[in-house]
């Protein structure tokens, strides 16, 4: 039983942040610098998790958890791997056109699970790489080399190819069937993808791609809040982990007299409102216990406390107000809204930790927990192990809340600045 109701907010956040960072030290393959998607046996590498790791190393150096040379070496290993990786686009390669397959073999770094060449996950990886290059700015051979590799990786990404001649970016590509035709419309985590793609000095997007994407947005008044709708919480957090959206506005947000930071604040409040309403009457949901997002949950047809069969979704992008919702909450997701809604994020963290201490293991968040599937001896159902994305967003968002370190670094990144301007952002720090 972990007792964490006593520490000050600062101590609480420090403990949670450090525990989350520990994941990257444990899940790394030292030979390649690549990070496992999760802590379970035989988990593959997720390229997005590597992006979060590259950003988290920077935080760890600042906080004294990692020596600078060690962080450079870890970053260097991963970046070097991607630079030298098989870019043939073959079924067993690592990438193509500067993009990378979503999941890679933990040992060889080659494609696994017939996964797709992922545009958004490549963007998250590159955002992490750029964070490293903006932080490791010393004139030492290692840090100079690191920055050179990051530039190579960024410049070789053919974002224009990923448009496939269309108005917006495709979500994925497979050697077996070409571009995937999944619908990827509406507001989502892709702002950072579009910003990077528009800021490219080599293959910037053609046409008014960003405007074409924002044309699919839905601005809704829900539960008394006007906001840009996106169901899962991570949609309102991932791009914001790198980009400080306070006070900068694109055309859409100028029209709505809002910005993407304020929007995430409202989206967080909508999440809490949903939990208060709890339309499906799941156990635990209330104003102190909320956070629906992409996370791991139960997947078997387990009986709930009332014995009724329920549909359970496993790893899924849970969202509000339309679901899917099977009673699974991601504790880390509410905490990752810390920069937007510090008071209610800390309140939720403290309350959930107190009521469901099983959701934490050594202060590290499980991907999801489900109080509706509680057992008398073990408490709420808890997702086994940990997932890298969850740990990465916790490290970064706590840091942005505490010192704005990541935001500060990326505000100075010329590619980010250029991309934001090309997307039509104006005002504030820009």
């Amino acid at each position, binding site marked *: 039983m972990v007792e964490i109701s006593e520490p000050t907010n600062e101590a609480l956040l420090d403990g949670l942040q450090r525990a989350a960072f520990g994941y990257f030290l444990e899940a790394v393959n030292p030979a390649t610098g690549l990070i496992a998607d999760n802590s379970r046996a035989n988990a593959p590498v997720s390229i997005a998790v590597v992006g979060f790791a590259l950003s988290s190393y920077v935080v760890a150096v600042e906080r004294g958890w990692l020596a600078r040379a060690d962080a450079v070496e870890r970053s260097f290993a991963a970046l070097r791997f991607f630079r030298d990786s098989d870019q043939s686009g073959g079924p067993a390669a690592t990438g193509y056109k500067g993009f990378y397959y979503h999941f890679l073999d933990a040992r060889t770094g080659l494609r696994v699970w*017939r996964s797709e060449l992922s545009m958004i996950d490549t963007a998250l990886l590159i955002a992490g790489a750029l964070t490293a290059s903006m932080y490791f700015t010393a004139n030492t051979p290692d840090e100079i080399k690191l920055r050179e590799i990051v530039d190579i990786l960024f410049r070789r990404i053919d974002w224009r190819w990923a448009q496939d001649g269309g108005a917006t970016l495709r979500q994925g590509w*497979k050697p*077996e*069937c070409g571009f*995937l*035709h*999944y*619908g990827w*419309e*509406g507001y989502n985590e892709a702002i950072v993808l579009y910003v990077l793609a528009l800021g490219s000095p080599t293959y910037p997007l053609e046409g008014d791609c960003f405007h074409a994407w924002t*044309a*699919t*947005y*839905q*601005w*809704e*008044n*829900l*539960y*008394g809040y*006007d906001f840009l*709708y996106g169901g899962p919480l991570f949609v309102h957090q991932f791009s914001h982990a790198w980009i400080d959206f306070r006070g900068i506005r694109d055309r859409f947000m100028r*029209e709505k007299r809002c910005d993407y930071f304020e929007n995430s604040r409202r989206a967080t409040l909508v999440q809490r409102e949903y939990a208060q*309403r709890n*339309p499906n009457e799941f156990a635990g949901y209330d104003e102190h216990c909320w956070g629906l997002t992409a996370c791991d949950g139960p997947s078997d047809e387990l009986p709930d406390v009332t014995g*009724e069969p329920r*549909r359970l979704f496993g790893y899924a992008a849970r969202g509000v*107000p*339309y*679901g*899917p919702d099977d009673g699974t909450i991601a504790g880390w997701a509410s905490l990752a809204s810390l920069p937007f809604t510090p008071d209610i994020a800390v309140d939720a963290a403290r309350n959930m930790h107190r009521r469901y201490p099983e959701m934490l293991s050594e202060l590290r968040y499980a991907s999801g927990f489900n109080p509706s599937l509680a057992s008398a001896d073990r408490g709420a159902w808890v997702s086994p192990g940990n997932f890298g994305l969850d740990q990465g967003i916790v490290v970064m968002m706590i840091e942005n809340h505490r010192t704005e370190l990541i935001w500060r670094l990326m505000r100075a990144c010329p590619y980010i600045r250029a991309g934001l301007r090309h997307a039509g952002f104006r005002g504030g720090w820009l």
Partner: protein
Amino acid sequence: MKQRNSPSAALPQDAYGQERMENVRLSGWCNPKPAARYNLVVVGGGPAGLVAARAAASMGAKVALVERALLGGVCLNVGCIPSKAIIRTSRLYAEMRNAERYGAQVPGDIRVDFAAVMQRMRRIRARVSRVDSVQRLSAAGVDVFLGEAHFTGTDALSVDGTKLRFRKAVVATGARPDTPSIPGLVEAGYLTNENVFDLTELPRRLLVIGGGPLGCELAQAFCRFGARTTIVQDLPLFLPKEERDAAQLLSDGFARDGIEVRLNTEAARVRMEGGQKLVDLISADYQSTVAVDAILTGTGRLPNVERLNLKVAGVDCDAATGIRIDDFLQTSNPRIYAAGDACLEHKFTHTADASARIAVHNALSLGRRRLSVLTVPWCTYTDPEIAHVGLYVREARDQDIPVRTFTVPMHDVDRAIADGEEVGFVKIHVKERTDRILGATIVARHAGEMINEITLAIVARIGLRTLARVIHAYPTQADAIKKAADAYVGLPARPTIRSLLRRWAAW
């Protein structure tokens, strides 16, 4: 009726079937002696044609109506009416199985009597067919000609050799299923809306190809009757024209019903093996095969324009989009108008009706009514129903109209909570910084009933501010519309019974 080589479909001949056939295609009917010249000849006896003929007759015009198959068209015989009849029964079965949710006991033996389902459907269809029977139409002053029509000139047509001359004509020949070109499908046999209502036995395993309204409605109904149902759709969501959230809720509903949902999937090939139909499915780089007993296609509709000899009449048309019309429903021949599915993008019975009234008005009077001013709602009668009227957000933004949407989830509506019908929402789109309603989408158990209030508001130019002043009977599910209007004027929404109870319990 075209039979499509499906061994399980054979038109049952019972008293109800006979009554309907007597109404819609009277046996022994002798076509009347044609008048020297008609004020209006209507080609097609579906919803548009029937409305056009009756409207013209009521104006005192000399009218003839020509029908080659059955009066009532698709809607009565093989569309809206039979599908809604069986959907009603399928909902009942779903509720029986979920009885515990409503505090009732699940019946001990829920056995689907498919023959009884279809017999009820035929009884209802026969009853509805009485309204527009051949006799009643004739009594209303319409010369009814049963037979195949084709134009012989710009002001005349022939019905099985009988020449009809006209001053004006309305072509309302409807549409038919557009069958996908899947290798092996024709050889294996398949169902469409034209013969699925002739089934006498429930297929044990059913594959529905196409995620449009017809496919979605019937997939859910047959699943609830107990058919192991798979639905394939080659797009990421069902009902591709609808809002994503609506389509997503439908997908979730299908999954709850036990339908196997295969999105982003194409049916590539069909073959017969061991008396069952094997269908190869392809989804990106993943291939699989399903074995079924019947295949239902619902992949769109094609206008019936081929056999009319329209070229001779000087009427331009396209095999895919139908008869070319202007905003007054006039064709390239000023004497000839068109209405309904034969010329419209929105192929609904109510648009057929509305367009027919405009066509007759414009043809027989000096009026110049426009098609483009119509506000057309529609509804897909799944559970929950999905209804829409006006602009979608994307359409508004394409026109550079800034949009604000007022969303009320049905789980915030007391009556929906009491009814156990909380899945869905009301979304009303207004022009930013005004209360002008641009459009709305409703997903709810009775969305088809609820959308009419929004349609009225749009047509009568009633804004959200006025709707907020309209007292809605409480508790009703349409109260969701009032809540959306309240959100516009900034009034706090009525707290739900649930939250009141929660407060009471806390106190």
